[in-house]
């Protein structure tokens, strides 16, 4: 168990942006919210999944909604408490710890606010090890852990408890009511035991995010290259170096879809890379050949400051490095590939692990 203060949150938020693989919502708002909570209620305690009691009750807490709404209608903070309390009330049991459902993006930091205010630990684990756009796309689903009961609350005080027949319906129904709530809300979902967390979650992801954040933010002070440190810390494969030469974005249904074309520079002079995204980067192809495929992580990094670039802010002319990172082993099983792999997003290509795609 270790204490998490406001400085740690800076690093974790930066690391969460890396794990967001272009999506997940900008952690800036989440970072400010959590820092405020820590300043008010004190530091949060981060606990290892292995240290949980088998019968402990763990509930992932998350922000749910449209990124544009989250930056205009800021959270009251109370909706997270309400979702938390409603879950306790409904289950008739005290929650022993919260955890992130999604370590990538905004939701990588949000649960720290609840942990600080409720003075309970937050588990160093999540259900993705990255960001994905749908509620059912978590490793918990792979272990047949139901998303329901889902406790949902908005800033006005409206609350719902959902019982859904499966995890996909959780996304469908919560998604629909969230729009009526004004486009954002807080949810508690996937209530599970300590034993289940140990088996089903991606362990150590918060600490990992913090290390990635430290590599980016602190390397300069140590006279190291932030990019080299990040690659080392993330065990990432450098897929491509170049300059964004074309960006095509369109909004289709609930998703920002697009392609970011990168013209090769330095060792990739003469090559081209296409990055496909649907909120998150899902497919990286060099000269037409796949180099990384979801659920493996594709991270776009600004070559000048080694900071991750979100899919919404890709711009022509930016010097970039594309990194590939191995997804958690759970995503690489046939079930994991079916849930978070290329077919789920409508691609014909089969999933091939990044290390095989980049074998020389």
């Amino acid at each position, binding site marked *: 168990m270790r204490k998490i203060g406001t400085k740690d949150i800076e690093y974790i938020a930066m690391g969460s942006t890396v794990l967001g693989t272009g999506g997940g919502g900008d952690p800036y*708002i989440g970072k*400010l*919210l959590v*820092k*405020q*909570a820590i300043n008010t209620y004190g530091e949060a305690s981060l606990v290892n999944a292995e240290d949980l009691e088998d019968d402990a009750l763990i509930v992932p807490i998350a922000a749910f*909604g*449209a*990124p*544009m*709404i989250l*930056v*205009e*209608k*800021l*959270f*009251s*903070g*109370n909706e997270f408490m309400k979702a938390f309390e409603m879950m306790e009330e409904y289950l008739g049991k005290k929650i022993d710890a919260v955890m992130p459902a999604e370590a990538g993006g905004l939701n990588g930091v949000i649960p720290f*606010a609840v942990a600080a205010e409720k003075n309970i630990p937050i588990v160093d684990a999540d259900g993705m090890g990255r960001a994905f756009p749908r509620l059912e796309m978590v490793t918990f689903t792979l272990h047949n852990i139901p998303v329901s009961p889902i406790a949902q609350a908005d*800033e*006005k*005080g409206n609350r719902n408890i959902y019982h859904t027949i499966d995890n996909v319906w959780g996304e469908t129904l919560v998604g629909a009511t969230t*729009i009526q709530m*004004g*486009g954002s809300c807080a949810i508690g979902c996937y209530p599970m035991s300590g034993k289940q967390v140990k088996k089903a979650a991606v362990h150590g992801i918060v600490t990992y995010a913090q290390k990635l954040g430290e590599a980016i933010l602190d390397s300069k002070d140590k006279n190291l290259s932030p990019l080299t440190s990040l690659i080392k810390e993330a065990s990432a494969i450098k897929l491509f170096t170049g*300059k964004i*030469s*074309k960006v095509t974005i369109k*909004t289709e*249904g*609930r*998703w*920002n879809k697009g392609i970011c074309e990168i013209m090769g520079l330095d060792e990739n002079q003469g090559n081209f890379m296409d990055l496909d995204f649907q*909120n998150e980067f899902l497919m990286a192809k060099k000269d037409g050949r796949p180099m990384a495929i979801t659920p493996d992580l594709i991270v776009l990094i600004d070559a000048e400051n080694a900071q991750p670039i979100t899919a919404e*802010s890709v*711009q*022509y*002319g*930016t010097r970039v490095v594309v990194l590939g990172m191995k997804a958690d082993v759970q995503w690489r099983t046939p079930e994991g590939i079916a849930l978070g792999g290329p077919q789920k997003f409508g691609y014909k290509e089969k999933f091939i692990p990044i290390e095989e795609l980049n074998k020389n």
Partner: protein
Amino acid sequence: MYYKIGVDVGGTNTDAVLVSHTNEILAKTKQTTTLDVSSGIRNAINVVISEVDVPKEDIKYIMLGTTHCTNALVERKELNSIGAIRIGLPASVSIPTMADFPDDLKILLGEHNYMVHGGYEFDGRLISSLNEEEVKKYLFAMKGEVESLAITGIFSKTLPDQELQVADWAKEILGSDVRTSCSHQLGGLGLLERENAAILNAALQKVASKMVDAFKNTVHELGLSSQLFIGQNDGTLMSLEQVQDYPVLTISSGPTNSIRGAGALSKVENGIVIDVGGTTSDGGVLVNFFPRESTQAAQIGGVLTNFRMPDVVAVGIGGGTIVRFANNQCILGPDSVGYQLKEKALAFGGDTPTLSDFFIANDELKIEGAEEPSTLRKAMEKNTGYTFQEALTVVKNEIQLAIEKLVDKLKTDSKEIPVIACGGGAFLLPKEINGASSVIFPEHLEVANAFGACIAQIGCEEEMVINTLQNDENSALEQLLERVKKELLKNGALEDSINILAKESIPLAYLPGAVKLKVKVCGDLIR
């Protein structure tokens, strides 16, 4: 027949041009910016009106571009004590007002920050209605302690009425001396960044009033009775009254004036403008005679804001940029001798090799009081340890690389487009640039910024979110356009000169049916 004067106050120089009503430059000057700013303006206007024989009463308009407000924020000088009201309870409490401000600025601005019930959903439904008693309680708490008030409501970009209502109550309780800054007039979507813009605006209102008074007095003392305007950062003009309401919109008007001025001088509508000064080369993109706006949130004085700003990328290449040779490498800047060129540069007896020295030595640049090129070449060979030709080739190559990188960064696609040079250091720019279809050096390029100030039009823009399940997208867009046009006419634009610069609807991710509308129009104030 009438005349206009454009004045641009920069960090180093105060430039002025006197133009005819057809925008022909009749006189121009570059004067040193003075500490009190006003005397620099007086000197510059004095020079241009004494150079041409024009009756004073025929100088109908004077347009001023100034960095005054930017400097006040950066230097934390003369800022007001402010009050801030955020309308949106129960939403938004989790992040307090000024949460991410630098501490020194937060302390300067005071502690009167309040949140009240109110605000709207993205589709126009109420989050809560305003509670008059609650708002007035806070207004009484601020009475006598704040000099201006920032008001920010959730989704006020779609429905500004709650902000306006609070502003009315503020006038009633705080008196009309306390100016109000409503966020819907200042920033885009994104509550914190818009609130920050409203707060910075409120903090600048006293500075703006003083600047306006000084400008008026200076012009008056010169015996001119011209109508006065100040340029804002989208290349359009504000009346002196508007400047006192929205001073933050003058921030970055300098680059905007250069970009528009260079476009007009070269008669190029679309291209890249590079303004070379003493310390940096600032590149911007000209789109239909207006600067392209930045899509990224911008930091001003350490505060994140999202109000429109020209998209400007700077590189450390300027007339005073220091040149260093070490380990077989040539490094340009990024530091510069700046305004001390005539003390520190080799060409003026100093000991620092600057970019200007290379061009003087190569007979490409003449500055009064500089050494003879041949003498200077010898001094430079001694200083750098290379033959002059070797050093010059390397230096020019470094400039070429830096400028090509800048141009490449600014382009939105790989198509070649013209590059227009301007500013006092334009001589540094290469005559050919990879990625540019041509490099244009227009006449009067050294005063492009002052010229840009005096050709400015007036403009108006709005953005909002609508739910297309409830409203027809096209008619909502047309209505918004009508509203903006009306506002423009109210501000004095000539009806038949109105030009639509942007009319867009952008669907929002994760929100089926929700669309962001944005329109922008401009028009001529005068003929």
